[in-house]
């Protein structure tokens, strides 16, 4: 208990100390996760919506793959991205390994199936009568689809929130492709893993508390946006 209590006290101390290294880690964590979620949303929402709204060859396989990859172990995602970005890999020429960009790619790979599969699920659950009503009011096929997605918007917001939660909490993939380089690719989760490995439990707990607090604040903001998006 003492370790946890001391960790909490240390967390407040760290926040109030305005330690440059700590804030650099926090900012990089946020930057990587937010970018990964934006990429996953831009790609995942249309893919999920398309699978829900249209019938096309291979749709069933795509849905099964999305559901399967929702449970993709981060270390496996990290390994695959590593192999692609390593010097001998097909994208090695880009020189992205051990950079924040590689971490964004790895986290996008992890978050994309979550956002796409949950979007598919929420858009699929919209009653067929909504589509028919839009048709009878004169909507074009594109406008009908848009209306159906609007009706599923709360589920789509939840998909994005779930994707963000996964990227913020992720450690395995960013450790593999980022390398936990201090001042460059070190993020909250990799810092926690490192401090735990060193036996600095108080610092690890303090970082964990800060990570939770940030995650809470970002989720609260997203929930706020979810509420404001209630009327479309």
């Amino acid at each position: 208990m003492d370790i946890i209590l001391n960790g909490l006290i240390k967390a407040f101390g760290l926040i109030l100390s305005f330690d440059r290294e700590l804030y650099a880690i926090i900012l990089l964590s946020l930057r990587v996760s937010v970018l990964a979620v934006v990429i996953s949303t831009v790609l995942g929402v249309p893919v999920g919506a398309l699978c829900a709204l249209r019938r096309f060859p291979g749709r069933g396989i795509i849905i099964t793959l999305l559901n399967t990859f929702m449970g993709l172990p981060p270390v496996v995602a990290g390994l695959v991205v590593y192999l692609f970005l390593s010097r001998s890999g097909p994208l090695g020429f880009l020189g992205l390994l051990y950079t924040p960009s590689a971490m964004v790619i790895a986290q996008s790979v992890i978050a994309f199936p979550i956002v796409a599969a949950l979007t598919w699920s929420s858009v699929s659950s919209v009653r067929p009568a909504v589509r028919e009503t839009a048709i009878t009011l004169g909507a074009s096929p594109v406008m009908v689809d848009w209306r159906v997605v609007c009706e599923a918007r709360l589920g789509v917001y939840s998909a994005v929130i779930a994707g963000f939660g996964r990227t913020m909490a992720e450690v395995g993939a960013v450790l593999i492709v980022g390398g936990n380089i201090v001042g460059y690719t070190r993020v909250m989760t990799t810092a926690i893993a490192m401090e735990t490995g060193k036996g600095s439990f108080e610092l690890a707990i303090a970082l964990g508390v800060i990570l939770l607090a940030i995650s809470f604040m970002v989720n609260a903001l997203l929930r706020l946006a979810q509420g404001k998006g209630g009327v479309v």
Partner: protein
Amino acid sequence: MSLSVSLSGLSKSFAARPALKGISCEFGAGKVNVVLGPNGSGKTTLLRIVAGLESPDGGSIAYTGGGGIVPAGNTLMRRMTLVSQWPVLFDTTLFKNVAFGLRLRGLPPGVVSERVDEAIEAGGLGRLAHARARTLSAGESQRAAFVRAYALRPELLLLDEPTANLDPDGVALIERLILRMKEDYGTTSVLVTHNIFQARRLADTAFLMFGGEMVESGPASGFFGSPARELTRKFLSGEVVY
């Protein structure tokens, strides 16, 4: 302007169970056409086919307006609308629900706003204009769905039991609006109902369906006054024909 609809040999089956068996009839332009019949007689299927929500297995359907046949497509769909027995309102405000179809038609925002306000007032829902649709009662939702159609001033208005969830005041209001649309805009209405009294009040032309077939049709005075078929007489007199 108003549309007329001609059906010729229309048939439709669901899982080998016939719902329509060679229906031929005409819904006259600028008239209130009332389709009567017991449950399962095919009335709703007929209406859904006319609305473009279902494709017939056989037969043809022609929409005529402005001196010529109107081809199927988005232009036709924007000249008509359907109000169903179980109204579906989008998860937004009543105002935005009513504005939806008007915006699709590319009307200027000022005109949209004016038409929405006028329709909502006509439907007696003025105080609920900016309420979320999900907060409306069943009766209010039913009126809202009708108001949404009313605002469009369609040339062809398809109504599937539009007063099923309404109290007598609500029924009277919707009936007044149906007649007002006919008078003011020349709207052709096709009203599916079980309510023989409502049919008598509104119909210019009446139709009786039974078992997927059109039993009888004709001007309301003759249809209700001296029906040609024994089945029609029994149905109108309340005798069981199921």
